[in-house]
């Protein structure tokens, strides 16, 4: 393998700093910071749509007799003459809510935003390895968004087979209206989405491995970067498998093959397909589907590690344990997929193996939780909005994670599978936790993104409404689920056993509406502060990482001069002996003799030698240039 020294890379980018017009700066930008913001704004747009869809079906579930006439301007014929929601459209709403939230908001909106924005800034690089590929990544995502958005307005509605789009339901147009053109567009959009994710992921991995600044060893990477790095690896390995699954589904739908279809009768007539296997699709889908959970979650955990350490003014507890547990989660995420299929007719012995592997994930997850708690323990806590949301993440991660232990048991799963217990579980541990991480990241890095601060009071109000609201929505759902009520059902009042939960559902729906409305505070705060917020200082959180050493409004290339070198790990907060309670990564050990630990003293000598050596090289180079 040929080896290239990438420092020449620095030179190329200086030239880009001028000649930006509106289009190259805001639309077809190759600057990772702008691309990150593009992902964020598109993600907010999708989050609003996804949230709104959930409110509509929550109305149906909580208030089944309600007259929904007022929604007719938006939904037209999907509200029938008596003011009821069309049952088929209900299925489409559930499907699109899941697809939008999992892929468009919590994958692209979270990983796309923060991986793009933070990786070059925190590792000390001018930009991503390939700015052009990065731009393509956003525009494939945009294309995917456009296709998915258009599918919402089809006459027969968008895809309606659930976000997992299991065949044969999704493979046969005759099955439900949502398996027609809406499903085709779903597959097209997801293909573009996969391309976007792969382009992005390849870029993130390449950048983290190849473009770190001097001194930025893997043992000195902020945990955010570790999380984004591992997330990208998971995506690189799992999204191609979704592509395979989708490809075979396309062949089944449009070319008449029988990969997933066999012995199906519609209206008494047999279809020609023989020899397919519907469970095959589930295996392929969940081989992506489970790692996808961690694609969504890991970036949020990384962001939280950084914010909690900064705002506790303490080094993160167990830096190495954090990395090892993330590595463990990464590896385990690929060997647990069949726990989504315990009741699919799978061999029960296989079920036991997958149960065992699933429960092992509790170990690295618990390690992370303990490390968060021990970092908070006796820290000088500063309750910034970002910090509140990070602590909120830890809370929902615990309460949602505990129910995972029940669901991971193949025996208990017979009762609980496909009920609202599952819905409550994954909305807490994956949905809410990742959303909290996303919001925490927005509050924390807003000053770096836009050079202004978000309003702290509004942030606090937003946090408390969201935090309480989320628990009010999802906690009662556990009871509904234990009572055995299945998810994705249009109505609950038709059965005697579920009648008594009507009031509980009403409560959940009301809480959901309040929680959703509370998010408008964030949207307002975000866009208002972008233009009218208080001007931020260079390092408003007094943080150690490299992004705070850039100018307030970094240009393309991030640092006006040399890229700073790194001399220490990113978590030197409240180091005994030090005057300040934080020591940025760029400060050499030799400059802080008062706070160095014994083993660091030895490193000081080494550091001096290297600095001297570099000085000689610099001088030599300069004399060469002069002559």
């Amino acid at each position, binding site marked *: 393998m*040929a080896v290239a*020294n990438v420092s020449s890379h620095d030179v190329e980018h200086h030239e880009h700093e001028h000649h930006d017009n509106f289009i190259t700066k805001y639309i077809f930008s190759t600057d990772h910071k702008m691309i990150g913001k593009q992902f964020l704004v598109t993600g907010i747009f999708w989050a609003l749509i996804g949230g709104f869809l959930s409110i509509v079906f929550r109305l149906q579930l909580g208030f089944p007799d309600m007259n929904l006439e007022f929604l007719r301007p938006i939904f037209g014929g999907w509200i029938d003459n008596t003011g009821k929601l069309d049952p088929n459209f209900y299925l489409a709403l559930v499907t699109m809510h899941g697809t939008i939230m999992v892929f468009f908001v919590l994958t692209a909106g979270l990983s796309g935003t923060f991986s793009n924005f933070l990786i070059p800034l925190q590792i000390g690089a001018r930009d991503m390895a390939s700015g052009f590929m990065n731009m393509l990544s956003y525009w494939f995502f945009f294309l995917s968004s456009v296709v998915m958005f258009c599918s919402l307005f089809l006459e027969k509605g968008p895809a309606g087979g659930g976000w997992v789009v299991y065949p044969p339901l999704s493979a046969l147009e005759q099955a439900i209206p949502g398996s027609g053109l809406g499903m085709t567009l779903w597959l097209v959009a997801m293909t573009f989405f996969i391309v976007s994710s792969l382009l992005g992921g390849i870029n993130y*991995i390449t950048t983290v491995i190849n473009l770190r600044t*001097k001194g930025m*060893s893997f043992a000195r990477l902020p945990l955010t970067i570790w999380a984004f790095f591992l997330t990208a690896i998971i995506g690189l390995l799992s999204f191609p498998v979704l592509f395979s699954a989708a490809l075979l589904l396309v062949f089944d739908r449009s*070319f008449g093959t029988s990969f997933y279809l066999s012995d199906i009768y519609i209206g008494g007539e047999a279809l020609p397909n023989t*020899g397919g*296997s519907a469970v*095959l699709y589930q295996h392929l889908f969940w081989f992506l589907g489970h790692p996808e959970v961690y694609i969504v979650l890991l970036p949020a955990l990384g962001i939280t590690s950084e914010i909690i350490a900064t705002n506790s003014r303490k080094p993160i507890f167990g830096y190495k344990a954090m990395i090892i547990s993330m590595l463990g989660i990464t590896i385990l995420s690929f060997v647990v997929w069949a726990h989504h299929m315990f009741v699919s007719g799978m061999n029960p012995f296989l079920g036991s193996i997958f149960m065992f592997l699933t429960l092992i994930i509790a170990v690295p997850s618990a390690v992370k939780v303990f490390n968060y708690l021990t970092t908070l323990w006796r820290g000088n806590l500063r309750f910034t909005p970002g910090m509140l949301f990070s602590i909120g993440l830890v809370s929902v991660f615990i309460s949602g994670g505990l129910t995972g232990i029940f669901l991971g048991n193949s025996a208990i799963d017979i009762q609980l599978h496909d009920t609202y217990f599952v819905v409550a579980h994954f909305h807490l541990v994956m949905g809410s936790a990742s959303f909290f991480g996303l919001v925490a990241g927005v509050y924390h890095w807003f000053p770096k993104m836009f050079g202004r601060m978000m309003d702290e009071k509004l942030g606090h109000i937003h946090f408390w409404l969201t935090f309480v609201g989320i628990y009010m929505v999802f906690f009662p759902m556990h009871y509904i689920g234990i009572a055995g009520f299945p998810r994705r059902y249009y109505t609950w009042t038709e059965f005697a056993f579920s009648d008594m939960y009507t009031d509980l559902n009403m409560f959940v729906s009301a809480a959901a509406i309040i929680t959703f409305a509370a998010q408008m505070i964030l949207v307002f705060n975000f866009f208002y502060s972008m233009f009218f917020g208080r001007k931020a200082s260079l390092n408003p959180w007094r943080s150690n990482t490299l992004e705070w050493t850039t100018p307030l409004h970094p240009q393309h290339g991030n640092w006006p001069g040399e890229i700073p070198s790194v001399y220490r790990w990113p978590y030197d907060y409240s180091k005994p002996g030090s005057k300040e309670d934080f020591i940025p990564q760029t400060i050499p050990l030799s400059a802080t003799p008062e706070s160095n630990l014994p083993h660091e003293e030895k*490193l000081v000598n080494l550091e001096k030698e290297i600095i001297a050596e570099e000085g000689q090289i610099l001088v030599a180079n300069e004399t060469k240039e002069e002559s």
Partner: protein
Amino acid sequence: MEEKLSYEEGAVQPLSMHPKKFALWLFIVSVVMVFASLTSAYIVRQGEGNWLEFNLPDIFWYTSAVIILSSITMHWAYVSAKNDALDMLRLALIITSFLGFAFLVGQWYSWVALVDRDVYFVGNPSGSFLYVFTGLHALHLISGVIFLIIVLISSLRYKIHSQNMAQMEMCVTYWHFLGALWIYLFMFLLLNH
């Protein structure tokens, strides 16, 4: 001791791979995952029975020989470029592209042979899988041939020589990978048929 090591490692600018070459390897990983998942799907599906048995087209032996030969000529091109033997490089690239094209034609005839055996794309998945494997591989090979032609054009413009090998090396890597991928698929089909 450990601290010291990590320090020394980080003190110098990390010597790293050419980013584009590295990205190519990552792309290869994603292609591997696509085919790994498809071949696993094949095994899972085969285990469930109702599996149409038929003989593989013999032409696969010839196309396999062609693609191995093309890897040899590709290596010849690589060595020529390293030694600045530019005429030889061009000749080798032309032969490799030609062999790649011949491989694609051969794969097309394998489909003809399958149809002669009444094995169609639409029908029992055992046949459909074969079409998906060969078709998807052929699509990648077409991209490889296009890459080869791009490299050939750069070599005609004297842009490839011993001091400027990055593009050439990427093309070599990709081409050998595509050859190995086909050999894997063929062996897989021979063993699991």
